[in-house]
């Protein structure tokens, strides 16, 4: 073999393997990822572990002081404490979490309350057409149409994997919308506004799609 062929073959080989990695790197390295203990992957994220994205200072909310306010046109504002939410019928589900930047966490165990339960008690079910979820992480907001928000697997979660929701995951209460990419699942949510049309959320004002239904291309189609 010509001397130069060796270097060229190595170079092209790495490029080819890398390009294939666009499609298969997650599966190929998935085994390694699972072997890495949680204590490591919480510091250096690997396959299937959480990454924590914040757009402003991470809120630090005292659960005892937490209030969720439901507001909107034609609506008398209602405020719920965390205890109020926990007193409502408890909902649990196991669902996957998919980020639009390409990572996923499978089989997340959520505990909380169904959104329609909360909206019902606030008298907001028959008022508007859409909801804006306001985070304590100002200026983060996002929105869902009422129809989307009333899907059976949408919830306000106060527990994750059997423990109270932790601060990086949106303590004390976050939205969980498993059928859409994660930027719709607003963390540290402290206000829900009933509106006539779905507003543009934080990332949607920065170019993201308002309709964040999980695509089929990443293998996690619904």
């Amino acid at each position: 073999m010509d001397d130069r062929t060796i270097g060229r073959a190595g170079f092209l080989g790495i490029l080819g393997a890398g390009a294939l990695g666009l499609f298969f790197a997650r599966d190929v390295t998935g085994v390694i990822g699972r072997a890495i203990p949680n204590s490591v992957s919480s510091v250096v994220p690997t396959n299937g572990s959480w990454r924590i994205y914040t757009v402003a200072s991470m809120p630090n909310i005292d659960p005892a002081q937490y209030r969720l306010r439901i507001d909107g046109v034609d609506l008398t504002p209602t405020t719920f404490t965390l205890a109020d939410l926990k007193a409502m019928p408890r909902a649990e589900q196991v669902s996957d979490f998919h980020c639009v930047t390409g990572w996923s966490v499978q089989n997340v165990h959520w505990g909380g309350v169904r959104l329609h339960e909360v909206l019902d008690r606030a008298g907001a079910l028959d008022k508007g057409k859409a909801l804006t979820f306001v985070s304590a992480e100002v200026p983060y907001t996002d929105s869902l149409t009422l129809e989307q928000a009333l899907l059976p697997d949408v919830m306000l979660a106060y527990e994750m994997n059997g423990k109270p929701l932790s601060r990086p995951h949106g303590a004390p209460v976050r939205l969980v919308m498993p059928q859409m990419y994660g930027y719709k699942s607003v963390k540290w949510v402290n206000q829900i506004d009933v509106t006539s049309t779905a507003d543009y959320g934080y990332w949607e004002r920065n170019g993201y799609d308002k309709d964040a239904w999980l695509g089929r291309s990443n293998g996690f189609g619904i």
Partner: protein
Amino acid sequence: MASDPAATRRLPRFSRTERLLHWTHATAFFLLLGSGLILYLPSLSTLIAHRQIVKNVHLYVALAWAIAIVAILVVGDRRRLKADWREIESIDRDDRRWLRGRHAPQGRFNAGQKLNAILTVAFALLFALSGFFLWLGERDHRFILAGTGTLHDLLTLFSVLLLVGHLYLSLIHPSTRHALRGMTLGDVDEDWARRHHRKWVDAERTTTAP
């Protein structure tokens, strides 16, 4: 070492174009690594918090890197760079012996430097490819490919390992750190070059006799 500076013969090793290419890539790499780690590591991403700003820094540095590299390839000494790449890709018999840990005379690039260069160029292209799909996937969900993020993360890991070795050999290791001079000032001590890159020095001295 108390040697008379006038007696030190120096040999030009890296041209302006080569050095400009090296330092442009190095500067961009550090900026991209810094901003990338802020986006990647939860401890840093929650500390710095302003994700949209950091993302833009990362994106625009990447764009500036690509434009600068292409500009150097177009405007710089292309013949010289082509010759470099031809030499880097040629892993000859001596290189293969050297890689197996034996003593073998080396050219202007030793076999380790050739491998480092091949990996660096391949990784740079793959960083650009996976980075482009990360950017595109956020905007058009059909382009969220299963392995894009993993590939970008793995490239970071391997590049940092490569960088650590590169910095050790160029800054710390006593017998190789003299090479740094070649990448800053452009020339190296001929005696040093004769010990480390004999085939190159021999070739230089036969073509350009003193």
